[in-house]
């Protein structure tokens, strides 16, 4: 479950005030909104990268309002993947398990399993510069999953992909979310993505989030 309770945040002239949002457990939620409506800021607040001036943030049963980003149990996949420029795919996948000081054998097995699952087993020794857009997003997803998160936060993960690749990665996101039993919040401004992926759709407008129906998107 993801829950924002009456949060407030501001940066310069931009403000989010008294905003609340609940994504039920094991649900794939899509948050839509125009460019500049604050979608990315909302994800960054959930990640703990932006400090709130009021309100509470819940991930699962835990109040994480004051928790560090790494203590929140989140898997964050930004728009361009934001892969670590000097690390191979193998090192990216092993990054979080290494920080968690898991045994080496367990890390190797996890990397192999994720690479097979995401179809990137042949890319393990490549650097990000040698990957296509779709491959980069798969690696970013794998890197997030390797941390064993409770929720996935996906910030426009398909927007930089061509149409064919977009469909492929969308199917992958849906499958991975289901198989890993995760709650997901997917940010987009694409109705097509919402129709394809969402169990529930939210709209962010004028600093407020409201639930909307899939039918209203057609």
């Amino acid at each position, binding site marked *: 479950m993801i829950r924002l309770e009456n949060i407030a945040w501001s940066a310069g002239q931009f403000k989010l005030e008294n905003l609340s949002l609940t994504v039920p457990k094991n649900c794939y939620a899509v948050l839509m909104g125009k460019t500049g409506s604050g979608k990315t800021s909302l994800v960054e607040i959930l990640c703990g990268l932006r400090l709130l001036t009021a309100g509470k943030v819940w991930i699962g049963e835990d109040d994480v309002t004051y928790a560090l980003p790494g203590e929140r149990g989140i898997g*964050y996949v930004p728009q361009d993947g934001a892969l*670590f420029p000097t690390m191979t795919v193998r090192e990216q996948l092993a990054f979080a398990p290494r920080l968690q000081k898991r045994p080496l054998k367990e890390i190797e097995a996890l990397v192999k399993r994720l690479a097979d699952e995401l179809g990137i087993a042949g890319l393990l020794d490549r650097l990000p510069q040698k990957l296509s857009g779709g491959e980069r997003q798969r690696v970013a997803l794998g*890197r997030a999953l390797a941390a064993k998160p409770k929720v996935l936060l996906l910030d426009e993960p398909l927007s930089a992909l061509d149409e064919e690749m977009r469909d492929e990665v969308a199917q992958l996101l849906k499958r991975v979310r289901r198989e890993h039993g995760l709650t997901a919040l997917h940010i987009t401004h694409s109705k097509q993505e919402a129709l394809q992926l969402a169990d529930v759709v939210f709209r962010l407008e004028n600093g407020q989030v409201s639930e909307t129906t899939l039918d209203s998107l057609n």
Partner: protein
Amino acid sequence: MAASPNRISGFWASLVMVTSLYLFFLLAMLVATASYSTPGDLWKTLNSPEIRYSIGLSLATCTTTALLSLLVAVPIGYLLSRANFRGKELVDSLIDIPIVLPPMVMGLCLLIFFQSPLGRFLEQGITFTYTVAGVVLAQFVIGSAFAIRTMRGTFDHLSARPEEVAMTLGCTRGQAVWLVTLPAARRGMFAAASVAWARSLGEFGPILVFAGATRMKTEVLPTTVWLELSVGNLEASVAVSILMVLMALVVLVAIRLAGERV
């Protein structure tokens, strides 16, 4: 009205002409200097104990300065690039002071600072005035300002997003910078150290004022050129100048090869 091909080529031709004239002037100066000395003169001069000492001291102090500059340039460059705080523009401008101030004035400022109570207190630990440590400090004051500029540019070009992702995966901010950002900034760090090294190699005014020009003690290559010139030994000053040009070229090529692509 569409531009004719002739107009475009005229535009580019004028740019090429300005560039060519500029390069010609630079190369003509270097060729004239190089042709003033023979390889024999050059070898003889570079073999003299004083000049060998000066070469050694220049290499040692420039390398020390480059490393020290990097130590301050990385954190300050990162702070200026990533953090927003009140007075940031003022801090940014203050850091440029050594770049815009005449070098001789910088040396004078150092000399006066070490006559102040704080300066005298610091000199109870290490003596800077008219010592090798003073040479390094005089080089550092100016070289570090250039290194900070380079590191700030490097961090500006690196997206903060991977660092933030690393934090969501369990890193502290420091770990994220160490594991993700600094490896990505390695070319910029090399460029910053090289810029500081090259600036230090050519530093003359502040060293002369603050550390003096004592033979076999605080004499570095620019000081040698000046000392030899002042006693009318043009061959020696030309030989040392050629050596400095060659060293500067090596550093420039190294910077170009490393690039600032980060």
